[in-house]
């Protein structure tokens, strides 16, 4: 058989192989992306109960917009604790997404906030820079968690256990 006569069957086989690979990828993604049944209130309560808030204060919607540029009415739930002074870097942001499509917007907002904070403390805030370097960003079960805190790892575990 000539190469020309093989061309169509080869394309067909390659396409089916690609479709199979795509299905496997999607199955993997679906396995990872399961929505948590935990309510936003329960998740907030679990995190704040374990949170040392001496250096932090809860933010209102205006502050949330100012620091993250996020519109609270677009999300199922959103909670922000931010530093009480300009010299603090401790922060907790918890977002329950109304739609998975929002994940990218929230992640980008977090990255932008992180960059801004690093720029602020770069060169003089050694402790703050260390906290920012060790920050936790988790996207699981329809929640996005951003933590800049000395207890970040412990709080992350609380988050994962509560999901």
């Amino acid at each position: 058989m000539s190469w020309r006569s093989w061309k169509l069957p080869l394309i067909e086989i390659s396409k089916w192989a690609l479709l199979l690979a795509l299905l496997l990828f999607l199955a993997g993604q679906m396995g990872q992306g399961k929505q948590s049944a935990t309510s936003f209130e329960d998740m907030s309560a679990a995190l704040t109960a374990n949170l040392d808030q001496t250096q932090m204060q809860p933010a209102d919607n205006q502050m949330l917009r100012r620091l993250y540029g996020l519109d609270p009415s677009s999300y199922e739930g959103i909670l922000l604790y931010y530093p009480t002074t300009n010299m603090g870097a401790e922060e907790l942001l918890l977002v329950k997404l109304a739609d998975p499509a929002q994940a990218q917007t929230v992640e980008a907002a977090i990255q932008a906030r992180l960059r801004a904070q690093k720029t602020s403390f770069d060169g003089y805030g050694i402790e703050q820079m260390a906290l920012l370097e060790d920050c936790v960003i988790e996207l699981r079960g329809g929640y996005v968690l951003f933590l800049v805190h000395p207890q970040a790892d412990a709080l992350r575990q609380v988050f994962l256990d509560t999901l």
Partner: protein
Amino acid sequence: MQFASLLFLFVFLPVTLIVYYLSPKRIKNVTLVLASLVFYAWGQPQALVLMGVSLVFNYLTGMEIALLRGNGRYGGAKAVAGLAVAANLFLLALYKYAGFAADNLSALLGLPIQVTQLPLPLGLSFFTFTVLSYLLDILWGKAPAERNFLCFAAYVTMFPKLSSGPIVRYADIAPQLRERNHSIAGFGNGLNQFLVGLAKKVLLADNLGVVFGTIQGLSSMSAATAWLGCLCYSLQLYFDFSGYSDMAIGLARMLGFRIDKNFDYPYLSASVSEFWRRWHISLGLWFRTYVYIPMGGNRCSVPRQLLNLTVVWLLTGIWHGASWNFLVWGLWHGCFVILEKFAFKPFFEKIPRVFRHIYLLLAVMLGWVFFFSPSLGGAVEYLGLMFHSSGVWLDGMFLYQLSSNLPLLLAAVIGCGPWLRKLHQRLAYVHGGAAMTVSVIAYMLTLIACVAYLVSNTYSAFLYAQF
């Protein structure tokens, strides 16, 4: 990655442009594809798998359709294209509409149907429509299949248009994928357009968004405040998306590509039909070319035309998002288009343009309420506020917001028309000399103002990126 970010402006773009222009002509597409993949994968690297598989699958499908057509097997080509269209739409549906469908089926059947909602990959709606245009153009003989995989990958992934369009038809851009003109003048024009888009987004849209956010967050408001909020959103959305489109077209121009405009001063229209010929032009063209005309367009009976238009506007609505709000918004516009076509036409010609313009603005602004509200109930509530449901026509908040944002609103209203552009062109290009120097300084000051704003402000995503 966002165009209006310091990372893009000061790292990604300069590095990409330097590498692109240093690359020999034959590997420019390689550079473009690699840069586009980095842009695409930024913050969402797992989406690269999806993009890679989809690219190869659609490339092979294009070849297969062309081979089958070449062998005279049009039926086979049609079946292959049909399968590929279904596969692409399945992916879009899975990522974008599965949750919406499951929620509504659950409510309808009374059964707890749950699906895992996946994070929507960047620009999936735009990407899907791009590849569908490619496959259908080949099937209908409007363009040959692309044999060079790099050219195909460059067409689909090109970072200027990847996240939010414009949706470029393959037949329109195919020649430029092989041979395009790189000139200093073209680069300069592209840079100008990019800066105009950046200013629209950073200086106008984001500030209008702050005003709108403040008003939307109020627990109660007068009718005047609700109208002001709606006006701010209408202007914000226009400057956000047309700003993005200007940046995309400008970036493409800097890379040697010419892409048609996506906006043509839509708020100056005098009917909803005209508005849609000037707003998100590439999407309107896509639906006309690949849905409306194949369904028979307007060369059929009136009932069939009504059906065709209803389908197109339902699809236009749902394309923007998986919610009833967008469906209602699409139908809202569809109703006006149908009324204008079949009922208003004889009267429209007799009405002065200014009244038709007011009608257009009211129709579009009221439509945006469905667009920005988180739910249908929220939209109805906001519409109620606009029509005095609070029992207050005017309050202190309206006067405060209007007076403190008057320069911004005036600048935005002026920016909705071509007057500034025409004045600039007349001064800088016709008179030249000192006016040209002033123009260059003005562009530089615009860039400095945008950067200062980006440094001091928080992140703000493009509104259309979520679609």
